[in-house]
């Protein structure tokens, strides 16, 4: 499938996604600043179409609601909501930094390699999108005691998975997150994820039992040098 995941924004706003797809797209939305910047205008547009259907409700409804409100406790999420927003606000610069790092990596790779690298990145992004939007995409979430979590969206038909680490805290500059696949007790590196929140494609998940994340010295390690901070079964 070559569909760009951005094209799910319009069906998302119209509530025209299957529940699974809605979850996957919301995970993507948390990562995609471009999508979020378009969401507001689209949602306002859709709600105006909806608002134009006005019809007077039965008068009893108001009385019933007022009575229910009088006996229904309200969520007290002011603290939570603000905490979530500030978490997001803190995460955004890190995501931007990660994106800038990718761009920098491509540009300092030199003139000769540049196009090849850019093509590789584009191919990787296309495959991520294919996994995220595949019909057999399944999601699992693993959270550590420290509050970090990764989402794993795996697609058997693509023999690949996308690991989304939105809440990974930023590491010191001499450390990286490294991803491992566990297969019959053997641990194999699936690549270095970077120093903060990010997304990563894992190719070849057939026979893989679990994914694990460790903190490693800059550049990554051949075998894990510390206990996993997270592990998720596939």
């Amino acid at each position, binding site marked *: 499938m070559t*569909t760009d995941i951005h*094209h*799910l*924004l*319009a*069906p998302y*706003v*119209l*509530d*025209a*996604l*299957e529940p699974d797809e809605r979850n996957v797209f919301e995970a993507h939305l948390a990562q995609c600043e471009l999508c979020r910047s*378009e969401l*507001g*205008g*689209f*949602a*306002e*547009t*859709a*709600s*105006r*179409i*909806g*608002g*134009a*259907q*006005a*019809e*007077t*409700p*039965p008068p009893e*409804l*108001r009385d*019933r*609601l*007022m009575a*229910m*409100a*009088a006996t*229904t*406790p*309200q*969520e*007290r*999420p*002011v603290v939570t*909501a603000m905490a979530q*927003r500030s978490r997001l606000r803190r995460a955004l610069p890190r995501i931007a930094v990660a994106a800038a790092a990718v761009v920098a990596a491509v540009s300092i790779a030199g003139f000769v390699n540049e196009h090849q690298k850019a093509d590789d990145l584009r191919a990787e992004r296309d495959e991520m999108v294919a996994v995220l939007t595949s019909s057999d995409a399944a999601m699992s979430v693993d959270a550590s005691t420290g509050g970090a979590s990764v989402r794993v969206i795996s697609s058997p038909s693509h023999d690949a998975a996308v690991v989304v680490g939105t809440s990974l805290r930023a590491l010191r500059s001499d450390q990286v997150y490294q991803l491992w696949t566990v297969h019959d007790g053997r641990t194999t590196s699936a690549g270095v994820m970077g120093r903060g929140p990010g997304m990563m494609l894992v190719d070849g998940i057939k026979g893989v039992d679990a994914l694990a994340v460790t903190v490693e010295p800059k550049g990554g390690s051949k075998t894990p040098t510390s206990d996993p901070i997270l592990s998720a079964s596939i």
Partner: protein
Amino acid sequence: MPAASRSNRHLGVAAEPTSPPGDDELLQRVARGDDAAFGALYDSLGSSVYGLARRVIRDPARAEEVAQEVFLQVWQTAARFDPARGRAKSWVLTLAHRRAVDAVRRDQSATNRERTYDWTPGPDHDVVDETVSLRLEHEQVRRCMEGLTELQHEAITLAYFQGYTYAETAEVLGANTSTIKTRMRDGLVRLRDCMGVES
């Protein structure tokens, strides 16, 4: 109104006419447990929420249930509303639409779901006691919908009012899914620009 403020001044009441609080202000008051603001918000948005639920679900009793769930959710979760991210009306109608679509998908299997996608222009205006500005907004929506291409119009209408997924929409219209997603997108862009919504 000049006449009113003149007489206000004459009576010694504050000369500045205070406009009634808008939906955004009301919803923020609801978040602080203000029952009267909840009633006023219902008076402002109740007909839009119920009308949208009716349009999607059709069955009046079921639509009333959904409208009730929506407003109860508004009461319970009002503190999540963030005015920086959009209007209160948009927030409430987004909740309403999702609940209506979830309800219609639960209630109806794909086989008995009605296969019509006509754009009926909504109820007569005398059904609802509308303010002039609301009436203008609704007329604008109708005019902008008429400005869509046939496929954009059908794709958006089937999804938004029938609760079809884009895959079901594609099947009903005999088009492929990527075409439908694209038509939904460019249709929304055209509507957004036609309505003068900030992008």
